[in-house]
Each structure stands twice: as C-alpha cells, then as structure tokens.
C-alpha cells in the first residue's frame, strides 16, 4: 500500500485530545478563524466544499457542497435555519463517528461552526446515539469549554457570527439515524421518517430550512477550509475524494477504526491494516459498508473501496464499515441475525417494511434452525423485491431487502442445503438472543 498523509485521526492519539487546550495547540480552530477573520463569505466556503468534492460519509455519499447549496437564499427566505448533525451511528458494523466524538470533539464543533456559517444556520443540533454516553459527555464538556472561550454564542470569535450548538441524546432507535426520522425525533415526536418531498433544505426541523450531515462529513470541513478544496480533491479516486474512516470488524486479527485514502483495495485493508483473516482462514463473504449493503464474496476483495468500484460490483460503500466473515461462517445464521435487526428496528409505518422485515426474519430463522421449506428461498427473493427499491417512505426497507437479495444470489446453494438437510451444516452452537433489547 502506498504511503499517505493522515489528518482525520492525527489528534486522537494525543493525551487529553478531547480538551480545548490540546486541540488549539495542534492547529485547532484555525479553520474557523480563517473563515471568520479573513473573512470568507458563506458562498466562498460552499464553493471550497464543492471544489473538494467531499461526499457524505453517512452512507448515501451525497456531495456535501451541493447539499449545502440547496439551502434557500436568505435574502428571499428569511426563516430561521438549522444544521443537524447525525451522530446516531447505529448501522451494524459502524463505529467510526464514535472515535471522533470521544477523542476529538472540538474537531466536530469547529466543523459545525464553519458549516453553520456557510449555510447561515443560527443553531446546530447534534443528535447522538443514546448508547454513546462517552461521546455525549465529551461533546457536552467540549461545547461548554468552547462556549466559555467565546467560540459558541452570540459573538463567535468576537465577530457578528452567532451560533448555538445543542446536544440531543437518542433513545436507541436505528430509524432515528434516517435524516427525517432524526428531525421528527429532535422535535420530540416518534422517529417516523417523513415522506420526501418536501426535502429538509426547504422543510426540515420545525418546518424550517435544515441541512443534515454525518459526523465524519462535518469533521472534514475544517481541513478543507484550511488546506483548500483542491488539496482535498487531489486525494482519492475519480469520484471519491479525501481520506475516510474504515471500521473493520468481524473475523480479522486487528479489528478497529482506520484512516485510509480512497483508492486502496479491500484486500490491502484486510491484510495490511487489519492483520488478515483470523485463525488462518479464508474470507467467505463481507459487507463493504455496514449490513445494509449487498454482500460480496471473498473473491471480490481486490475491489477498490470507493463509491464507483463498489457500485460496479453491485454493492455500495455505505459507511465503510467492513464486516468480514471467514469460511466457517453460516450465511443462514448471518442473515437470521441481520434480518432480525431490521425487523426490530422498522418504524412500522409502511406496510412492506413493517410486515416484510418480520417475514424475512421469520423465514431466515426457520432456515437457520432447520425448519425451512423448499419454497422459502423463492419467497425470500420475491419478498425482497416487493420491499425495494424505493417502494417505501425511507430506505430501511431497502436496507433489509438488499442484503437478503445478495445472500440469495450468492449463497442460494447453502440456504437450500439447510432446507433439504433440515439443519444448518455450518451452525455454530446457538445462542438465543430472543428479546435481546
């Protein structure tokens, strides 16, 4: 693997990296100072973001600068406007934002302030996953420090720019990581995603223009502002720019969160960064970006881990949370666990998702426990096709259907063997997690 410059995780290894003193001593808030004191206009910041071609790190990969430019012109639309930061990281396999929030909370705060300046938001809401207590506490303490240092409030850095940052703790629902579900939850309602249109830029939090960004996306902003969009765009592949965080988990020797530039292959990450597949085994299957992506085979490991290459393979980058599975893994069991997750987390609004996720979970459970019937695989396939794509209000239904379709496509023989033999030949000793929440 080529050498590369790290920037995202550099500060996280320092002692007391979460404090304002350490953050400032390591170049912190220089980006914000550049924006406010130089000064840059909001349009210039957005232009820099567009030049960087930073794509959202929350899963969908939408260009960040373009998203910001959707916010209505404040001279024509005087409504209050908000930035919501999606820190409700709950995709199975994903744990990258947690590192940033726990180890470098001021980096996120600086990014929030610059982003709020660019989209002219008066307030920022950081929606933190409820289980992330450490992240929440660290961010809260950091916001307090920053406010006392005059970085948050009526006059940020003694300029006319005013911005408040508020924290909100989720209550454990995966669906609140969907941007409209997140907004409903912030408003104090049930986290039921809203139909789109209207989009958040026109009708978001409390009906006002709102931008929703992922933690890692916002975290990139101060670096882009300081070093320029051109610098950022020089890293990576054609349509995937910059460094990104890979959270690799599962059957590898060194699971963890690693910073890498776009352009490395999955095999490089597994072998050179994560120490290879454990126990000397081979990779049977893997999720490239969390459980909502299509499964790939061990033979696909030479793919470059970026948006275009994974799309060409029929999967997607998602949150770059690689979940590795060795060749002793039962795919029926894997899918049983994943399907149960989506059954548990469906909000229950749309018929296909509410009933479909439960149905998938029931069928995978039967197959994995040796109670499958011959037509099950065909049923799985047709149910998944009835649930996606784009047949429901949000993408949770798709998120359940995509791995199902890929499992049926890649491991049909294995699933059918479980059915015909009335048991799962690869079954581990079963631990029942019924009612695990």
């Amino acid at each position, binding site marked *: 693997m080529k050498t590369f410059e790290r920037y995202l995780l550099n500060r996280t290894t320092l002692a007391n990296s979460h404090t304002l003193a350490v953050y400032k001593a390591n170049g912190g808030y220089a980006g914000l100072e550049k924006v406010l004191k130089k000064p840059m206009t909001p349009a210039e910041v957005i232009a820099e973001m567009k030049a960087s071609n930073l794509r959202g790190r929350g899963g969908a990969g939408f260009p960040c600068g373009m998203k910001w430019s959707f916010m209505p012109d404040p001279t024509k639309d005087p409504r209050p406007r908000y930035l919501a930061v999606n820190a409700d990281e709950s995709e199975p396999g994903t744990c990258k934002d947690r590192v940033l929030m726990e180890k470098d909370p001021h980096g996120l705060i600086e990014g929030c302030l610059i982003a709020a300046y660019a989209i002219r938001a008066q307030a920022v809401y950081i929606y933190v996953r409820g289980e992330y207590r450490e992240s929440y506490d660290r961010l809260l303490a950091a916001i307090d420090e920053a406010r006392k240092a005059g970085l948050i409030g009526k006059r940020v850095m003694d300029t006319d720019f005013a911005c408040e940052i508020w924290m909100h703790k989720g209550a454990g629902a995966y669906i609140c990581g969907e941007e409209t579900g997140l907004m409903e939850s912030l408003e104090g309602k049930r986290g039921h995603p809203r139909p789109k249109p209207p989009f958040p830029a026109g009708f978001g939090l409390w009906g006002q223009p709102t931008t929703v960004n992922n933690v890692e996306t916002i975290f990139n902003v101060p670096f882009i502002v300081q070093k320029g969009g051109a610098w950022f765009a020089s890293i990576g592949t054609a349509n995937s720019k910059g460094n990104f965080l890979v959270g690799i988990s599962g059957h590898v020797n060194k699971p963890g969160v690693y910073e890498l530039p776009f352009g490395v292959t999955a095999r490089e990450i597994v072998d050179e960064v994560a120490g290879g597949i454990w126990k000397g085994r081979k990779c049977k299957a893997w999720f490239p970006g969390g459980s909502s992506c299509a499964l790939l085979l061990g033979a696909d490991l030479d793919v470059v881990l970026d948006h275009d290459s994974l799309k060409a393979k029929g999967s997607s980058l998602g949150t770059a949370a690689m979940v590795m599975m060795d060749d002793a893994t039962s795919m029926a069991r894997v899918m049983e666990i994943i399907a149960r997750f989506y059954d548990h987390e469906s909000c229950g609004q749309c*018929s296909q998702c509410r009933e479909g996720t439960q149905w998938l979970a029931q069928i995978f459970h039967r197959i994995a426990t040796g109670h499958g019937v011959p037509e099950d695989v065909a049923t799985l396939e047709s149910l998944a096709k009835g649930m996606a794509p784009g047949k429901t209000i949000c993408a949770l239904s798709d998120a359940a259907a995509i791995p199902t379709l890929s499992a049926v496509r890649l491991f049909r023989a294995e699933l059918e063997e479980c059915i015909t033999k009335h048991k799962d030949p690869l079954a581990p000793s079963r631990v029942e997690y019924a009612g695990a929440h």
Partner: protein
Amino acid sequence: MTKITVNGRAIDADPKKPLIAACHEHDVDVPMYCYHPGLTPVGSCRICQVEVKQGDGPARVVVACRTPVAEGMVVNTDAPKAHDARRECLEFLLKNHPLDCPICDKAGECDLQDYSFDEGQTKGRTHEPRRKLEKRKSLGDVIVLDEERCILCSRCVRFFEDVTKKPQLTVADLGSRSTIATFQDRPLAGNYQGNIADICPVGALTLKAFRFKARVWNLSKHLSTCGECSRGCSITAEVLRGGELKRFRPRFNPKVNQWWMCDTGRFSFAHANATGRLVGAVRTSEGLRACDRETALGAAANALRGKASVTVVVSPFATNEEAAAAKTLAARLGAKTCFVSPAPNSLKDDFLHTGDPCPNRRGLVELGLQGLAAADVASALASAGAAVLIGERVAELIGAERLAALTGPRVVLFDTRAIEAPTLDSAIGVPLSIEKDGHWTNVDGHVGRLTIARAAPNGVRALVETLARLAELVSPAGAKA
C-alpha cells in the same frame, strides 16, 4: 386547474390536492387505506401505487396520495406494474391479518376485503403463525379495538390530531409490534369517537353499539339528516330488512359536516325502534280509545269546528313542508301559530354540535313562526279556546304534565304517541323523520333532505297529507271560513 391524463382521459385536477384526489373526483378508483380526503396524507400504507409518466421521463410507480399533480402528467392506474405493486403491498398487509371476516362487523364494507378481491392472490405463502394481539380492547364507551385486524394506517390517530385537534391516540411500539393505543390506556373522551370506526378501513375499530348487531349487506341505506341539533349533519340512515333502524353514519357534505358527525347524533335513534306507535285515538266516555286515522280526524274536526281563538303549536322537528301545511291549516282556523323552542343544551362545541336541539329552527323562523319556550307555550295554551299540537315529539317538548294540567282548550294532537290529558279530544299518528320526505334548514341556511328510510306504521300517513285532510274536514273547500 392542472391538466392531466388519467387512464387515457383528459381531466382538470386541483393543483392543491394530491393525485389520488384528482382520480377519485373523476371516478377513477385508486385503492387507499391511510389516505382519507379529510386527513393529512402520510403515504404509509403504500396501496395507492399508480404508474405516472412525466414529460420524456420513464414511467414510474408512485404513491398517488403523496404525488402532487403536474401539468401534462400521464397517469395509468391499470398498468401491470401498478397492479403488481399493489398486489405485493396487499400480501404484506395480509401477512398478519387474522382473516376472521366471518365474525367481523366490517365484512362487506371492508377496504382490505374489497381490494384483496380486486388484486390479491388467492393463496397465502406464510408458514408462520399470525401475530397474536389483544382481540377486544376497550377504548372507552364507544369503541372497541381489535389489534390483530389493525393495518396501522393511522387514520384514527390523525382524526384526533387533524379534525378534533385533541390528540388522543398514537401508534405505540415499533415495527411489526406496533399497536394503536391511548396514553396509559386511558379511555377515549369527547363527542366524536364514533367517527374513527367509520374511517377505519378494516374491522379494527368497531362501535360497541353496533358490534354483532347486523351484517352490513342486509342494511339498506337512505340519505337523511341528523335531527340532534341545528347543524343538521348529512347522514345515512341504515335499516335492517325488518325495518329496524341499525345505525346513522355521516354522509359527506362539504358545506355542513364534511365526513363527520357527533356521537350524540350517531346514537340518537333508540326511540325510532320503539313499538306501540300511535295511529289514531279519540276520547270516549271510557277515556282515549284507539281508532283509525279517519275517525280520529273526524273527531278532531268536530273539536275544532267553530272554535274561536285556536292556537297551533308546531314541533321543532317539523319539516319546512309540514310547517307550511300547518300554517295553511292555521289560516283556515283563524289560529295563532308558534313552535316549541327547547332550551340550548350543554353539548355545544367548537366543531359540529351547535347546542340547539331544534333541527329546523331557521326553517320555521323563515316561515314566519315564532319560537316559544315550553312554559310560554303552556301559558299561551291556557288562554286559548282550542289547541292543535303538530309534529314528532311536540307533546314531550311542551311537557306532558303541562298539557295534563290544562283545563281550558280542547286539544288535538299529531304525534307519534298519545298522552294522558283530560282535554285531549283526538290524537293522530305521524311519521318519524326517517319515515318521511322533507327538508330541514340548518343554522347556516343549508337545506338538508330527509327521505323515507322505512315505511311508517300501518295507517300512519304523511303529516302534510293528514293536515290537508283535517283542513278539508274543518271547512270543506268552497265554504270559506
């Protein structure tokens, strides 16, 4: 207006309404569960999927309830892709539905049943037991919830949020474990609970008063108007084969009640099924004796003929036609006229109920009748030579005791039942409001129509006809009074 094409037909659509409304307003059937024209669309049931083509773009299957109409849009509700999408959706909706149609009150008017019949497959693919939930959960005095039948369309939740503006219901829990619930299982409150049973597309919410009382395909439906207050909500009177009135349901009327009615009006029909109705009665030496209408009318004519200072009192339930006939009769008799005006009640709210229990007040006033409180009517009668009391519930509203206490005037009564009063000479039966044609004018001047939902008891004729006959008997045509 926006010009769109639906199933090959050019139509003008209201740009403020979603595509599904344009389809429905032009008689194109698009299935719906969560959508209701009176509620905020949420687009969650996904059954209203239709194929839409805009400009040069590809044909897409979209939910019609969340799609705004756009100029030049080409809609095909019958496209194979749209049918497939709806069939898939129905299979999911039926996944946990108990299919207990044979014992379900909604069977016969159930949207899930109807669209399954139109689109659905005949064979289920589930091997799992269906979801087991509360089968009869009481939500207060009016409504029972069957959680198993519920398809979570959330219409009932939105009814209390959007219409009465007093939210009471919510979807509790997540995903396939979701149920409809009130906060801490408190009973529902308010005078509009019955509406959620009407808008429930399946048999999840049923009226306690209607549970297991009739199969809906045995009910004949007749348009009518509610007589509970001066709002005069448009309703349907539904009658079982034998003539028993089984329920009132609101009938869409954009000028009066939209899709709704209050519970007081909805359950105001118990008296309509009472037996022992009056046909005719005359006073004899042994007291009141039942007789036919003609005999009773003859006795009435004798009692009134040549009487000075006659007072005609009309019931507030009298239709405009009946009141006009009463006025004609009064003119023949040289009589004064008025109507009984009951006092306002405490049911007045900021939605439909006006608190004025007088359904045709405005119509009677416009005909020149003066409304008098019951006590004032009684004192006016005390000084009269004879009294003609006309219409449904007139004796009850004046007060049977007040009438029994009268000593002066000879009394002729047109009502559904006779009363014990020494001065009562003759009583003639009248039809109830569900047994007659006619019109009431509501508080805002909107004229509501009554039609014959069932025949009046044998021997009882329309009041207009009866009053004309009495006028004829009192002073035969040609012999001007």
